[in-house]
């Protein structure tokens, strides 16, 4: 795996290495001694003999800065080591053992944190004397409570993870679990915080030295140098500025390293993230006829991301129309581009690194021509969206009432009282009991199903023409799913609106939609009325998906027909038909020519396949079925080889991840835009 640390990291690391090397080899460097006076004229500015100039007593400032680095670095690194030495074991113990151990350790820790640190430092140094060791111990001990807290938090997070449970199931002792499973994961955040901690310790030592409470003269320290130079500020500012600048750079470098290391723990880079570059150019759209009398027409829609690994065609030339009162389902596996398709229709794709193409017409009006402000208005009033996780769509710190009322007050200009009454009506209409009481609740006080009802009520509040529902029930239980889908259908009928339902679940799609689009690798591979598509399936991918789902009416241990392999790498899709490497019916032509959308015998039923299922072309020479009972391992193995191990997985993930990311931000933005 390649991880990007960035040039700033290497620059910072270079600077710290330089300072460390200089401090360590100060005695060997061709420098005057730090306490030797009148090596040059006093208060001389930087020059060839003395690159950093001299101070009031004619001592070489470079030499004093280099020797001063010893104190700063010893205190900085030493204090952190001391803190980790005592803090980390306590933190790991508290985070892993929990209960009484945790309560005792954290109780003592909280008391220690409440103790005024500066007073403690001053008192110790004043009584025990201002030596390097004392300063180091004081700063180290002061850091311990923060370390305990940090390590305990990280330990708790990882102890919850299932791999820790798995290790205990294997019979590993606690000690083994800690060393092999928890500590390696905790060490990266600890390392990153260590660098930030060093920066803090260096600043703290500097402050103590400035107050004269650190190592005493004649040993130079950076804080001491700054303090000494103070009276010369007007005549020889370099005496103050140079040590200040060196200290500033060092602190900055430690912080930068810590920051970059922390970024490593958060982000998993796959080189498929959109490159942060704005791309204004649009992909050309194929000529198309703008249809009249349709609510929504999508023509040749394209969304391509520029990534480090090449262009990813998340949505690649999708066209469809949608009438009022109908439900269109978009179905596909993760990475098929189904979520990206509706985000593209809604204009919610990220700006950076994205190339768009194609047109979206709402009642004949081209939405892709609109500016952000106009689009926001459309999103608020004519098109509304509901996403998978209702918790991310709702603001956790605001009541349900304020969130449901906001779009009513902003978009429809309602007064507070009227909006509250309307909000209660809306909640009642989506089947929420006691709406007046629920309006005063916070999102976390509701169940998942209730929260999804609230987001649906919000989406419906301004009477949209189209409701986009992106996996609205995936996070919900099956009985709740039934309730929510039933609700969406009832609302569609009452309001005479259209619904676009995105789902990976074919049975949901079959039951609750009128028309279906099946997506694979960013393209439509089959499209048609639900009945026709499910009963007279033409595309082998659709067929494979249908057969892979266990059916209730099949007997137990009924072998499932397997679809080997994984979705393709969108950065490098297979040639010809993107499904051909996994297709049991594929022939030579499939890998060479991409099939266009053919018209099936049923009206409006289209499929992209050279040798469709259930027709003369498809039945001839079908390859033997990859049935579950026999040859599973062989089939899987073949699949492993066919699909490139890593890339395909990542490609599938990146779209899923991008979608997940968008979900969090866009839902909130979506809600806000409705509000503003």
């Amino acid at each position, binding site marked *: 795996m390649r991880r990007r640390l960035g040039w700033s990291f290497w620059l910072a690391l270079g600077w710290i290495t330089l300072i460390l090397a200089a401090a360590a080899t100060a005695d060997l460097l061709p420098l005057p001694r730090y306490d030797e006076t009148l090596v040059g004229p006093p208060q001389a500015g930087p020059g060839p003999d003395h690159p950093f100039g001299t101070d009031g007593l004619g001592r070489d400032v470079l030499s004093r800065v280099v020797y001063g680095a010893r104190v700063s670095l010893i205190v900085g690194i030493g204090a952190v080591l001391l803190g980790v030495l005592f803090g980390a074991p306590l933190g790991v113990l508290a985070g892993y053992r929990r209960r009484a151990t945790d309560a005792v350790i954290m109780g003592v820790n909280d008391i220690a944190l409440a103790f005024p640190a500066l007073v403690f430092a001053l008192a110790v140094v004043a009584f025990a004397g201002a030596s390097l060791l004392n300063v180091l111990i004081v700063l180290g001990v002061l850091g311990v409570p923060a370390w305990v807290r940090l390590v305990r938090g990280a330990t708790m997070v990882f102890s919850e993870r299932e791999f820790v449970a798995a*290790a205990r199931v294997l019979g590993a002792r606690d000690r083994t679990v800690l060393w092999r499973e928890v500590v390696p994961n905790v060490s990266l955040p600890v390392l990153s915080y260590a660098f930030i901690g060093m920066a803090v310790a260096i600043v703290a030592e500097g402050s103590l030295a400035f107050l004269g409470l650190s190592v005493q003269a004649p040993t130079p320290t950076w804080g001491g140098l700054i303090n000494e130079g103070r009276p010369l500020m007007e005549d020889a500012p370099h005496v103050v500025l140079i040590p200040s600048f060196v200290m500033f750079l060092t602190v900055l470098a430690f912080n930068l390293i810590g920051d970059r290391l922390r970024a490593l723990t958060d982000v998993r880079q796959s080189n498929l993230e959109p490159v942060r570059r704005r791309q204004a150019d649009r992909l050309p759209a194929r000529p198309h006829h703008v249809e009249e009398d349709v609510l929504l027409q999508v023509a040749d829609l394209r969304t391509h991301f520029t990534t480090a690994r090449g262009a990813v065609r998340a949505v690649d030339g999708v066209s469809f129309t949608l009438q009022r009162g109908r439900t269109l389902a978009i179905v596909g596996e993760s990475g098929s581009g189904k979520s990206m398709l509706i985000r593209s229709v809604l204009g919610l794709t990220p700006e950076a690194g994205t190339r768009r193409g194609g047109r979206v017409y709402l009642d004949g009006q081209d939405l892709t021509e609109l500016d952000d402000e106009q689009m926001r208005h459309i999103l608020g009033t004519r098109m509304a969206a509901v996403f998978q996780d209702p918790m991310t769509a709702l603001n956790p710190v605001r009541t349900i009432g304020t969130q449901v009322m906001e779009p009513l007050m902003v978009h429809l200009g309602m007064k507070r009282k009227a909006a509250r009454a309307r909000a209660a009506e809306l909640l009642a209409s989506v089947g929420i009991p006691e709406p007046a009481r629920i309006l005063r609740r916070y999102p976390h006080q509701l*169940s998942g199903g209730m929260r999804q009802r609230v987001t649906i009520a919000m989406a419906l509040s301004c009477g949209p023409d189209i409701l986009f529902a992106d996996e609205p029930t995936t996070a919900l239980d099956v009985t709740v799913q039934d309730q929510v889908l039933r609700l969406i259908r009832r609302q569609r009928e009452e309001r005479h609106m259209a619904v676009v339902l995105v789902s990976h679940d074919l049975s949901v799609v079959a039951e609750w939609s009128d028309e279906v689009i099946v997506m694979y690798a960013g393209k439509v591979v089959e499209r048609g009325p639900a009945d026709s598509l499910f009963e007279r399936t033409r595309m082998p991918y659709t067929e494979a998906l249908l057969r892979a789902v266990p059916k209730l009416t099949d007997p137990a241990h009924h072998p499932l027909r397997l679809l080997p392999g994984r979705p393709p790498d969108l950065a490098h899709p297979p040639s010809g038909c993107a499904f051909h490497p996994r297709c049991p019916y594929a022939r030579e032509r499939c890998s060479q020519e991409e099939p266009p959308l053919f018209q099936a015998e049923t009206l409006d039923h289209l499929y992209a396949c050279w040798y469709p299922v259930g027709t003369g072309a498809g039945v001839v020479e079908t390859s033997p079925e990859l049935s579950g009972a026999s040859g599973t391992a062989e089939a899987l193995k073949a*699949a492993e080889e066919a699909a490139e191990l890593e890339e395909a997985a990542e490609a599938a993930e990146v779209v899923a991840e991008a979608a997940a990311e968008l979900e969090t931000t866009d839902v909130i933005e979506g809600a806000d835009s409705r509000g503003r």
Partner: protein
Amino acid sequence: MAGSGNAHLRPPGEVVLRVEDLVVEFPAGRGRSVHAVSGVSFDVARGETLGIVGESGCGKSTTARALMQMPPPLRGSVRLDGLELTALRGEALRRTRRRLQMIFQDPISSLNPRRRVRDIVAEGPRVWGAGADRVDEMLTAVGLDPATAATRRPHEFSGGQCQRVSIARALVLDPEIVICDEPVSALDVSVQAQILALLEELKERYRLTLVFIAHDLAVVKNVSDRILVMYLGKVCELASGDALVERPAHPYTRALLASIPRGGLGLPPADQLISGEPPSPVTPPSGCRFRTRCPAATPLCAAEEPVMRRIGTDHWVACHHPQETGEILKPVEAPQVARAPEAAFPQPAEEAEDARVPKSPKVPKVPKVR
């Protein structure tokens, strides 16, 4: 539903795992507790797959953890080949635990991101001082190529492949029982089918006994010999998959089946079989825990908790008013309240618009023998 009782348990000699009256509670603050699992009993015969199905909060995952004694249950007994696991502590528990293994829901979270696949799978043998000679065999068995996969880290794999690694890790210690806690619910349908087929194949090859926990009844039915339906910490119904789907007796089982889109079972719409929201497990309803959402509930359901009783060949239900299943067999345990057979099919008030027209309860039908 909300049933208790042990009538459905088989004699100890026939089963490898026997769970009796399992109770797990968690503190919920202010002296209250979450009644996560309240008196659940079941058993699993060697080589059998028991499916446990139910919705979130029904206690199915908590039950799985309690079997592993992680944490040990508050009350109840878990016997593995007659050995009482709840009585074991420390070293003895650690030694016994390896005979049970687990596969978790989240394929990513269940693998340590900092370790290589080979080390993850070899961890079990390493803990027990055995050689890593089975590691490659296991990786191959789960459909991974040891040569390319072993040195990679989990994030380089897709969810399905990570789940294969988890399965290899669980099987490398040659366990007697594998508990699969929602092993396919985070996967795409095509990958889900691959993993299900793999589990079936490995079960045959290594003669495993499986406890398969999932919320998707169709998935559970596909792999299970018997299915246990749970609701709010209680057992509702236990039957073979076919019996459960063809003759669901518990109102909750019926609601669950009716909620499945395109289930094709000819049940009334789900909204006529279940209403409202699940109650809080902190203050569960008295009597039958399903009564607050049950269209067939009567005062009896609030007053008295139903116990498991037999209604067909290896078909058990904990309900005062189970749906007619063709032949009502006499409960094996004497019911606490003696009732006329008609009382089993009362006409609740809600029945007016209920599409559940009771079929003639008098026509005896011989249950299918399988």
